[in-house]
């Protein structure tokens, strides 16, 4: 009997604690090295700007996996896929003050900390048999978006990465 009464309250508490709050007006951080901002909410949209890792943006609107973002206080902006953004504040150089401020204000991600370029360099030095130039070449190759668009069109396919 106790459980039957408690259940709705528990459910409510659970929902309040874990439901995603309305995201409009929320601040997000760019969590990718280079975040393209597009004119429309899909990958075929014209690129109107680029954001850097750690940049803060304000969410103006969300649509099926995409967020219209802008610098805080401005109404224009462009679309970024939500996977490029994090609700955490990304601290680029974590001084004691940043760490403390974030400790009281919310979630924090430390950029350039943990497994980073220094650790990779140390790992390389210990494993000289590994050829990282293969990986560098692999990552340097970029596929232009217009080639992807043509590939999809000629193959009778649709761009699957847009707001549906």
């Amino acid at each position, binding site marked *: 009997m106790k459980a*039957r009464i408690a259940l709705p309250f528990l459910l409510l508490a659970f929902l309040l*604690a874990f439901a995603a709050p309305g995201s409009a007006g929320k601040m997000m951080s760019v969590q990718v090295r280079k975040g393209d901002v597009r004119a429309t909410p899909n990958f075929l949209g014209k690129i109107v700007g680029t954001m850097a890792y750690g940049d803060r943006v304000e969410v103006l609107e969300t649509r099926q996996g995409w967020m219209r973002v802008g610098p805080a206080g401005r109404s224009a902006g462009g679309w970024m896929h939500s996977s490029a953004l994090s609700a955490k504040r990304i601290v680029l150089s974590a001084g*004691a003050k940043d760490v*403390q401020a974030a400790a009281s204000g919310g979630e924090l991600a430390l950029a350039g*900390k943990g*497994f980073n370029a220094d650790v990779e360099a140390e790992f390389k030095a210990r494993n000289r048999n*590994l050829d990282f130039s293969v990986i560098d070449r*692999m990552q340097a190759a970029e596929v232009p978006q217009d080639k992807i668009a043509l590939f999809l069109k000629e193959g009778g396919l649709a761009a699957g990465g847009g707001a549906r």
Partner: protein
Amino acid sequence: MRSRPGTTAARLLLAAALAIACGCAALDEVAKVGTSVAESQGKISKEQAQSITRSTGALAKAAEDFTPEQEYYVGRSVGAVIANRYRPYRNDQVNDYINLLGQALAQASDRPETFGGYHFLVLDSDEINAFATPGGLIFVSRGMLRCCDGEDAVAAVLAHEIAHVQLRHGIQSIEQSRKTEALKVLAVEGTKTFGRKELADLTKTFEDSIGDITSTLINNGYSRAFEREADAAAVEILSRVGYDPNALSAMLREMGKRLKPGGLDFAKTHPSPASRIEEISSLGLRGPSSPAPPARQARFRKALGGV
């Protein structure tokens, strides 16, 4: 004795809430231990130690999961191990085609953006194999491509690997103890410049983490549940782009004919094709809405005819 559904649900909710609370507390504890060790070794002052303890909650949260940036560095090293073991297939026509197709699919996934983006490379190996490293470096062997009778089949293989990246399966195969070790270093690092000792400690943890992932990818394979999840996400990606989602099962059937029992490739690291086909069939897939134009098959033959 049967409990009422309401009671069970309430218990489950309580258990979930407790599990979450305990998880954070455990991380806090680790940060405190890390701090006191650093303080006792004279690496940080008492003031610094206090400031770390104050911000422990945030630090614990920050290190709870590896950031996409850390995932990127892990993926690069795992990729280097794989490329070293198998050797890249140096054929621009083949690699360009795989990258074009792969990008089109990755953009349709639930995680189209990763720290360094998705990149694809064909391996010069007769083994039937494919690997996805954390962050989006994807490798597929010539032997695997030879199992594909058309572009839809290649798309199915790549979509399955993209799904592993999307679902962060690679990073989850890092043992929990490594995360705890990394967190100890991070707790000190938060307010102090990196010393030689910390770098050496962290590199050891990094090396062990790379080992965890490569042995999962090359020797042990993921759990059946992870493979099921990846197959389900793959058919979703295929459908979104307009490929035939049944191409995955068709490809697995062909693979099943070619895999040698006891082989060191997919035969070792993946559930049998037959069992995967059975799981996929339970998803009740429909065919593509429109038939494939001849141009799709023509470009597949042109690019991969000689692979």
